[in-house]
């Protein structure tokens, strides 16, 4: 099981670093080219969410992302340290058309893209675990 862990201060610029790393490792782990776009986007969403939460609640604390290839799956976990923000649906306001929740857009994107998603409580904040199918041999075999 090969693992990479990235921790970064809560700056939007570093969300790009996280996307870059996730895409590179996903490719090497054998995630299909067609899915790489989804990995990039979902990982970016989870990290953007964490960065925004940190900027509000704990700008000095780093955000953590772990990337793992395990038993033929590429697994990404994003952990924030921001105290339990409830992602409560806000009342929708719209002129006729139903508009989606802004706050949940990121989660909606992740849910739509990751093959498998879990939102778990972390030691201090929230933890989003996503995974995609990868090569059965993974990076260790490379």
């Amino acid at each position: 099981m090969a693992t990479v862990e990235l921790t970064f201060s809560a700056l939007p610029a570093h969300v790009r670093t996280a996307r870059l790393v996730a895409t590179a490792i996903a490719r090497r782990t054998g995630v299909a080219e067609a899915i790489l776009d989804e990995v990039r986007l979902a990982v970016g969403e989870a990290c953007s969410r964490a960065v925004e939460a940190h900027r509000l609640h704990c700008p000095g604390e780093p955000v953590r992302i772990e990337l793992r290839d395990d038993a033929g799956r590429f697994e990404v976990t994003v952990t924030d340290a921001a105290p339990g923000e409830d992602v409560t649906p806000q009342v929708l306001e719209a002129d006729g058309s139903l508009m989606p929740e802004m706050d949940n857009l990121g989660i909606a994107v992740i849910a739509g893209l990751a093959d498998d998603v879990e939102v778990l409580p972390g030691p201090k904040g929230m933890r989003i675990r996503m995974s995609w199918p990868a090569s059965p041999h993974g990076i260790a075999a490379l």
Partner: protein
Amino acid sequence: MDLKLDHHSEDNLTIVDVEGEIDVYTAPRLRELLIDLVNKGNFHLLVNMEKVDFLDSTGLGVLVGGLKRVRAHDGSLELVCTQERILKIFRITGLTKVFGIYASVEEAKEAHGRDK
């Protein structure tokens, strides 16, 4: 890739050309541009996303925010987008029902012409 923004007006329609990545890092610049355009009285906006490589929910949020602003002035904010990977993001968030999405600036202008 960074974000490039450009805009010009044709009659009462303002076309905003966006190129590059719209994400948590660059979306604030798009938001500022949209706010600025609305403040200056441009209430019919067409955002051309043909050269957008990457769009995340922060970018979607800015577009929704822009839409809300122009609607407050009975305006419109519509999109030009044909790239499947960008359209997918609008679909999974349900925003295809919220935005008029066209295959070209011309197609959008025709529709816009009919609206008036």
